[in-house]
């Protein structure tokens, strides 16, 4: 087991595309770090550079104390789980798991013992003679894990290994990978597109965008204190509600509605008085007025529809206030679906935001019609509209 250190790492392709820009990151021994971001953000490229499958254009990459920039993948003592598992189709499950050990020149008896132990750990013992094509998705995933853990490498690299599984199996495998990583204590870099996976699995999350590290830290930190608009919008499901709002004396104005702000918040916003900022409200901070202290400011909205999935209910409501249409927000929308961008553009025309509130499913709320949410004003997030940086 070892640490992994990225120092000023750059990856530039021959056509000039910069896939990774000045990446500086220290991953501690035994840590589980998740790289997350939209397509083309540089997360997989970073992982492949650690694996040695991609050349490093500049900077220094260390595994433990060794600089590995010019080392072949075989010499790095790492193991990787690929998105499509890359199980050798012509080999049995046993041969697939044994392959890394054979490559090391281990004796046959020892290989047999190690493979048997690994198969037992992953519940694959009865499938050892089968070919990958005869296994289910979850079993294939386990074989890929087995091939990675069998030789006890210094670092595990996982490139979206759960993306081919159905939703239920994904949840199960998420837990299994976390359990295995804790049990084995091997430094792990896990790449994913899915921020829910990132939030639930990692000790630390690294958010990337266009090759640049946006923020890194524990899941709670990224959720509660996003460094910029991109992280705020990307982390969290449902996403943060974003409005364009003006700051006047002691309040933020969303459309025509004035939300008084606590003193502490006003202090950090002093420099932005009289200007427009991006205002972020997490869905759980739009609450039922009946359940809270009457002093909380109110935000009037038109409830459009609700989604009930006990124990919570998501309430979607239109708020007449201008939406945030910065490049960060559009990029995330584009990553979800081209139609999401069109929907945002429609809302921009109407100067309206489809906000989401997270209620307890036992709480009463209207299915449709006018409704006033209470806003937890001291949990609002503010961002500079030009730079996207959080205002604190």
């Amino acid at each position, binding site marked *: 087991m070892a640490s992994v250190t990225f120092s000023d790492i750059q990856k530039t392709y021959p056509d000039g595309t910069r896939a990774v820009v000045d990446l500086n990151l220290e991953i501690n021994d035994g840590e589980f770090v998740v790289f997350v971001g939209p397509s083309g953000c540089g997360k997989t490229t970073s992982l492949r550079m650690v*694996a*040695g*499958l991609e050349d490093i254009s500049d900077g220094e990459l260390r595994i433990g104390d060794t600089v590995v920039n010019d080392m*072949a*993948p*075989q010499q790095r003592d*790492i*193991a*990787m789980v*690929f*998105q*499509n598992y*890359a*199980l*050798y*189709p*012509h080999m049995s499950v046993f041969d697939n798991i044994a*392959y*890394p050990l054979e*490559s*090391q020149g281990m004796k046959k008896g020892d290989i047999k013992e190690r493979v048997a132990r690994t198969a037992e750990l992953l519940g694959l013992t009865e499938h050892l003679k089968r070919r*990958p*094509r005869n296994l289910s998705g979850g079993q294939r995933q386990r074989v890929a894990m087995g*091939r990675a853990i069998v*030789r006890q490498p210094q670092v595990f*690299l996982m490139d979206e290994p759960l993306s081919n599984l159905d939703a239920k199996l994904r949840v199960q495998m998420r837990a299994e990978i976390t359990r295995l990583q804790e049990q084995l204590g091997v430094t792990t870099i896990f790449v994913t597109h899915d921020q829910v996976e990132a939030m639930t699995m990692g000790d630390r999350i690294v958010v990337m965008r266009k090759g640049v590290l946006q923020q890194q830290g524990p899941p709670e930190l990224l959720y509660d204190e996003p460094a910029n608009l991109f992280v705020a919008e990307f982390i969290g499901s449902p996403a943060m509600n974003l409005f364009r709002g003006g700051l006047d004396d002691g309040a933020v104005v969303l459309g025509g509605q004035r939300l008084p702000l606590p003193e502490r918040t006003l202090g950090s916003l002093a420099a932005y008085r009289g200007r427009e900022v991006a205002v972020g409200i997490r869905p759980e901070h739009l609450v039922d007025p009946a359940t809270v202290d009457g002093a909380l400011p109110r935000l009037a909205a038109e409830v459009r529809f609700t989604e009930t999935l006990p124990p919570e209910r998501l309430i979607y409501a239109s708020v007449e206030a201008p939406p945030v249409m910065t490049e960060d927000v559009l990029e995330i929308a584009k990553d979800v679906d081209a139609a999401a961008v069109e929907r945002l553009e429609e809302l921009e025309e109407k100067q309206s935001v489809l906000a989401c509130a997270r209620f307890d499913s036992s709480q009463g709320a209207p299915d449709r019609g006018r409704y006033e949410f209470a806003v937890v004003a001291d949990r609002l997030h503010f961002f500079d509209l030009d730079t996207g940086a959080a205002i604190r």
Partner: protein
Amino acid sequence: MGNRYTKRTFARELTLLLVAAIWWVPFYFLVVVSLKPDLEALQSPLSFPKEIHLGNFSTAWHDAALGRSLVNSLIITGGSVLALIAIGSICAYTIARRPGRMSTTLYLLFVLGIILPFQLGLVPTYAVMRHLGLVGSYFGIILLYTGIWMPFSVFLYTGFVRALPKEYEEASVVDGASTLRTFRRVVFPLLRPVTGTVAIFTGLIIWNDFFLSLIFLNGTKKTPLPVAVYTFVGAFASRWNLIFAAVIVSLAPVLIFFLVAQRQLIRGFTGGIKT
């Protein structure tokens, strides 16, 4: 509904059977003539033999030294096909996986090798091979066949390797295997369908080739079956019953091989990569 056996299906089947029977006509003549004595073979070559005369086979076997020629054919075809598979696959792997001007140029050269008829360079090739002492040797003829059919082998393999997902090789390299081991244990087994195509296609052509064997091996004890069969063709008279018996002997190994390996061959051709 679609599976119902109708009159139309019957008619279609009957037509197909008749067409298939037409393909058997030359084979019928081959067998019939090979079973007739000299005179009958000349007088009524198309009729059914009055008396089965198996002696043609033993005469052909002894007079043309078919046993030795059979071994020669096996050595020459086997050696050439093995070389075409071993060298062709490695060469194609390099061309497909190392993009660059060098690979493109090499690939184009191979394509050119398919287009240009080798007969154009036959005289200089003969002169060079004679100078190097390669005429009349197994090594020489194997080298010649390998060279002539290598562009075809490389062309087929390159197309297949290009379509092969890179992840298998990357997984192998990350698993600690050298490039050679990756090729031997991971890539080459995945190339099985195209290896089957190269083996069958080039194997049949080389097994049946008469022209090059005649030029480069005639007059030696290393002649393969087609040249040996030619022994019975004379300037003034040809013993067709013996020639046909010899042809049947030379066909036998190919037919036996096909009957035994039929299922695996078809699976190999049509299988692709099952992940």
